[in-house]
Each structure stands twice: as C-alpha cells, then as structure tokens.
C-alpha cells in the first residue's frame, strides 16, 4: 500500500479536474455556437437579377416592393406583378421560364430571406422609408447585385449608430417591445 | 570562493555578522536559507525591495480603471434606473476599490517574479540545489 498510491491518486485527481474543466469548456463552446447564422447570399428558387431590374432598367424599389412605404413589411411582389412584363418580355431566358412555370402550376414562389432580424426586434419599413432612409442604407447596393447579398451587419450596435447620427429615438422600446 | 553551511540560525547569523564586520563587501556574499531570516538582510544592509512600488502602481491603476470603466459605461449609454442620477458615484467607487485590490495584488506578484528572477531556468534545472541548511557563499575576486 505505497506504490499504487500516488499514481492512483494522481490519476483520479487528474481525471476529476480534467472532467470539471472540460465540462466548463464544453458549455462555453456550446454558448459560442449558439446563434442562428444566416447565409449572406443564399441561392433563390429563381435567380432574380436585381442588377437588371433595379440597375439597368432603373425601376424604383417600391415599384415591386409596394408595401415598403405603407407597412412594417416591405413584402415581395406577387407573381402577377412579374407577369405584367414577362407575358411578353424575355421569354427565352431560362429563369423567366422558371417563373412562368410557377405561374402555370399555380404555385407560389418561396424565397429565402437575406435580411432577417430576430423575433425580439420590431422593425418597420414604413417609418424608415418615410423618414427618407435610402433602401441601400440597410440593403446595400442591391441595384448592382446579381444575387442579393447581405452587406450590412444588421447588429444592434449598427442600428444604434445610425439612429444616433440621424437623431432617431434610441429608447429600447423603439425596437424591443 | 568559500562556502559555509550551518544547521542553526544563530550560528549562521553570528558568522554572517562577523564576515561583514571583517569588511567583506555585502555584494560578494550570497545566501541560501530554508526559511526567511529578516536579520540577514539587515546585516547585509539591504533595503526592502521594490515590490511595494509595483503594488502601488497596480493599486492606482486598478482604482483608475474602475472609475473610468463605470463612468464611461453610463455616459456612453445613459439609462435611467430607479430615478437615480446617471453617474451615481458610490457604487462606482466600490468597483474602483475592488479593482484597486485586484490590480494591486497582481502588480505585487508580477513585481516579485521580476525582482526574484523567477521562473529561473537555473532553479528549474534538475540539479538545482535547495538548501535545508543555511549557506553563505563568499565569492572571491575572480568571482566577478
């Protein structure tokens, strides 16, 4: 009862300590992993090129996103809006044919959100648009994008920064109710 | 160089005193002790080390940090709670006080390591000697 002693003690001790530390590291790791990451430029069911519509054709954002100035949600246009032109225009393009396919099948198109905020943030497009904030302030130069990409951080600090510079309210209830 | 070893503290001190009175320059005397003997330093006429300055620096830094942190935090994002003023010093002083102690002790420790040249490779060497007796080493001229 002497030789095995120290090694045993050391082993047991080492294990216990290691286990405890590991548990903590694990917890912290899980913590770091805990956030719903959103891809910056997700693929869309139809590769709608803003660069053509908003860029080359120079359509206003609100031409399609009609609700932006009058509703909290900008909303994407119904397919009927697309069809006003694409009944006749660019019928040969594969993406346009995709679109017509959806319409023919009577199936709504489900886009992947690029700019999204957590459930605990209340954002209203109406107020921002009416305050004269340019769409690109948050959405970046969509008019130059073939595929819409999130270029702004959309973090709280970023929001507050802009609110402060523009003298907009920074009371918590402005965004968190 | 000469090396003297003692079992008892008293003999050790007596001999050390003798050496110094005999005119051996203190800087040529190296000691090793199993525990601290304050008198030894006195005999060699060494003044208390510089650890205290590190401690002081740490303490002041801590207090400053505490106040700066707290005050900046409320000024940068002022929020009204319980009708209290935005800059409410009493609690902030508390933070300052705690950081004083924290930085102070860490400063002192850092200072000690620096001054005592620790961790020292020589001390870590497998054959590093550690006296459980009192040792006086007097280095000869060639020692330098």
């Amino acid at each position, binding site marked *: 009862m*002497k030789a095995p*002693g*120290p090694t*045993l*003690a050391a082993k*047991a*001790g080492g294990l*216990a*300590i290691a286990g*405890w530390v590991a548990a903590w590291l694990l917890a912290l790791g899980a913590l770091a992993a*805990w956030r719903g990451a959103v891809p910056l430029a997700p693929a869309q069911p139809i590769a709608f090129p803003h660069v053509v519509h908003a860029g080359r054709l120079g359509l206003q954002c609100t031409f399609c996103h009609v609700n932006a100035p009058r509703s909290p949600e900008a909303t994407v246009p119904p397919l009927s809006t697309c069809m006003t032109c694409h009944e006749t225009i660019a019928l040969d393009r594969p993406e346009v044919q995709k679109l017509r396919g959806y319409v023919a099948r009577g199936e709504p198109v489900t886009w992947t959100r690029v700019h999204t905020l957590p459930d605990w943030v209340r954002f209203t497009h109406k107020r921002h648009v009416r305050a004269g904030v340019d769409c690109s302030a948050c959405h970046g130069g969509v008019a130059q994008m073939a595929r819409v990409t999130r270029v702004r951080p959309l973090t*709280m*600090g970023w929001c*507050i920064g802009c609110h402060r510079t523009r003298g907009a309210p920074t009371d918590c209830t402005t965004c968190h109710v | 160089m000469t090396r003297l070893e003692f*079992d008892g503290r*008293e003999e050790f001190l007596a001999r050390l005193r003798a050496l110094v009175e005999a005119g051996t320059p203190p800087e040529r005397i190296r*000691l090793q*002790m*199993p*525990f*601290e003997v304050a008198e*030894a*330093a006195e005999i*060699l006429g*060494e003044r*208390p*080390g510089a*650890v205290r300055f590190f401690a002081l620096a740490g303490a002041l830094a801590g207090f400053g940090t505490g106040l700066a942190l*707290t005050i900046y*935090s*409320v000024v940068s*994002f002022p*929020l009204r*709670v319980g009708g*209290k003023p935005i800059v409410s010093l009493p*609690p902030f002083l508390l*933070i300052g006080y*705690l*950081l004083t*102690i*924290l930085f102070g*002790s*860490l400063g*002192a*420790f850092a*200072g*000690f*390591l620096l001054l*005592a040249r*620790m*961790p*020292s*490779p020589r*001390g*870590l*060497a497998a054959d*590093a*000697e*550690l006296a*459980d007796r009192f040792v006086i080493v007097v280095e000869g001229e060639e020692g330098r």
Partner: protein
Amino acid sequence: MTGTRVGSEVERDVLGAIRRPGWRWLLGLAVSGLLAVLLHVLWGALIVRGLGLTGLNNPVGWAVLITNFVFWVGIAHSGTLISAVLFLFRARFRTSFNRSAEAMTVFAILVAGMFPLIHLGRVWVFYFLLPYPIERLIWPNFRSPLPWDVFAVTTYLIVSVVFFYVGMIPDLALARRHLPGLRGRIYAVLSLGWQGTGEQWRHYARLYLFLAAFATPLVASVHSIVSWDFAVSIVPGWHTTIFAPYFVAGAILSGTAMVLTLSIPMRRWLGLEAHMPIDHYEGIAKILLFTSLLVGYTYVVEQGLSLYGPSPFERDQYAFRAFGPYRGLFWLMVVCNAILPLTLFLRRARRSLPWLFVLGILVNVGMWTERFVLIVASLSHDFDPYAWGTYSPTRYEIGITAGSFGLFFLFFLLFSRLLPVIAITESKQALADRAGEEGTP
C-alpha cells in the same frame, strides 16, 4: 535542539502524506466525485427544462441556490482571515491551519461562484454580466449589486489563489526534492525554480506582506458586498444597515467552523498530530467563540431594530420569522450559532477535538439555515398580503446543494494528497523562533 532537525520532521511527515492514500481517501474521493457529477447533471436539467424544476415561485424568487452562494462565500472567509489577518497579527497558531484554510478558501469560492450562474434564468447569456465592449454598445448596470458581486467574487478568487500559491512556493520546491521522476518535475515547475536565495527571500517577504495587506480588507468587503445584495433592496427583513457586519461575522463563524470540520479528520488521517497541536485548535476555538458572540449580538440587534423602527412591514417580518411556518429553522439557527458555541467558554470544551468537530458541523448547519431563513422568509412575507406565499425546495435543489458539498470535498481531498497541507517552511521558522526563544535566556 535546533530548528532544522525538527523542521525536517515536519517536512518528512507532511510530504510523506502526499504518498499514502488510505482507503478512506479513495472512498471519499469516489463519493464526492459522484456528488459533483450529480450537481452538473441536475444543473443541466435546469438549463434544458427551466427553473420551474425548482420550488421557486412568485414571491420567493431566490431560495436554496442563493442560500448556497452566500453559504460558500462565507466558508471562503476564514481562509483569508487565518492566513492574512493572523499573519499581520503574528498569531503563531496560524501555521497549523493557514495552508488548508487557504485551500478551503479557493475551493469554496469556486463552488460559490457557480451558484449565481445556476440560478440564472438564461445562463446562456451570462456574458451580459461581464463588462466588455460588445457590439450592442450596452454595458452592465454597475448600480446593481449583482455586478458588484461579480467583481467582488472574482477579485477574491484571484487574490486568494495568488496568496495560496505564493505561500506554497517554498514548500513546492521542497516537495520537488522529495518526489522522484515526473511528479518531481511538475513540482519543480510549480515552484518556479525557487532556491531560497537571500535575494528571493527578501522580495518574497515583502510580497507576502503586501498580499496579506491587500487580502485583509477583502475579508471585510467581500461579504459586506454579498450582504448588500440584500441590504440594498427594499424587502422587509433585508433592508437593514446592520447587514454588512452581520454577514462578515457570520462568514467568519462558518469559515472557522469549516476549518475545524476539515482539519480535525485530516490531522488524524494524515498522522499530523505532532504538527497540529491542541493549543492551536484552542486558538481557533477562541475565534469561533468570539464571532459567535458577534453573531448572537446581531440577532438581538436585528430584532430590536425592527421592533423599534417605524415600519410595520419590518415588525411583521420578524414576527413571521420567529413564529411563522419557518419558525423551526429560525430557532435552530439561534441555537446552533448563538447558544452552542457558548460552551467554548470552558477550557475543556475548547481543547476537546471531538466536541470542536461536532460543533463545527452544527455551526455550519446553523449558518446555512440562517441564510435560508433570511432569504426565504423575507421574500415569502413582504409588502402586499395578496402576494404572500411560501416555498419549499424540490429534489433538484437538494441534489444541487449536496452536489456542491461533493465538489468542494472533491477539491479538498485532491488537495490533501497533491499539495503540502501544512506550511512546512513557516512551521520550520516558527519552530526555530521558539527554539531561539528557549535557547536565549
């Protein structure tokens, strides 16, 4: 007789203890290890399912978990007291206990520190509490006592660890010499290559002095700050100015009691009777008695203030404690903390290790109940009669409490085998001093 001979005895026995793990030790290790695991499992359940698994409810938002926090922070106190304060007062009996007391301090803070986290509703965002420049641009609220806790406990932990470690450096160097092979190397590295040269000793002495000087105010401040978690609020029974001294006294009482509870068996099982003489225990017993008197006094003053004061809420509250559903615990706390320790006025009691051991346990039972009564009774009977309600713990809280003891003893058992449990170098010095006094008439 000269210092070194006796000194080397200490050295042999203490470092020898590192080698011999008895079956008692292994058993203890296993039991406390299991309890520690239980603690983390139950905590996991709380995180996944929610704090509803506890018995907490609407008026009573804090209970056993916070009780444990206060309790363990209290335990942590005697460590600093014995090592720092007694060092400054040059109390000789300190040398038998300071090492284990310091270890106890460190472990108790580690355990205590877990509880504020355990009782958080959303522990996964605990970092909101930490003051670092986050992208949200928003900081912790330094006007709230909880960030004070964060700072106080962290400071206390770090300072205690440093103090504990610095005090151990020379002994680690010794251990390195006694243990061959890998473990020797480990101790060597831990000792940072200490050689005990005059130069090192000179700075070391200054450092130790300063650490003691810094740690001493912490004894008073840390538990005062913990007490302000309650005193700063407006809850009847919490909102009193006496809380800071009241808590500090209580903390030292429980800490000292824990020292007895731990060191008496340790002394026996590690065969250190020679180096932990009864006289030293008598010294500890005196501290226990003194703090117990303080605590008893605060009990009286607390009730007195409530009766004297203008607030009907306060008056009702103290009546509720003494005669309400928690009266059993209330009187238990009075007996354990303020009455039983009075036996220590008798020299025989002070010198009887069995009694000191039992008393140590009883006092800690009393101190735990004190915190429980203080927290739960006050919350369950505050301002609005409609909102009154009582609380009783569930098996989750009981399990976590047991687990916290497991974790603490796990740490302590490991310490008792892996590190020198008595300050060898200091003992040597003490012995030398005594020898010197005897030698020089």
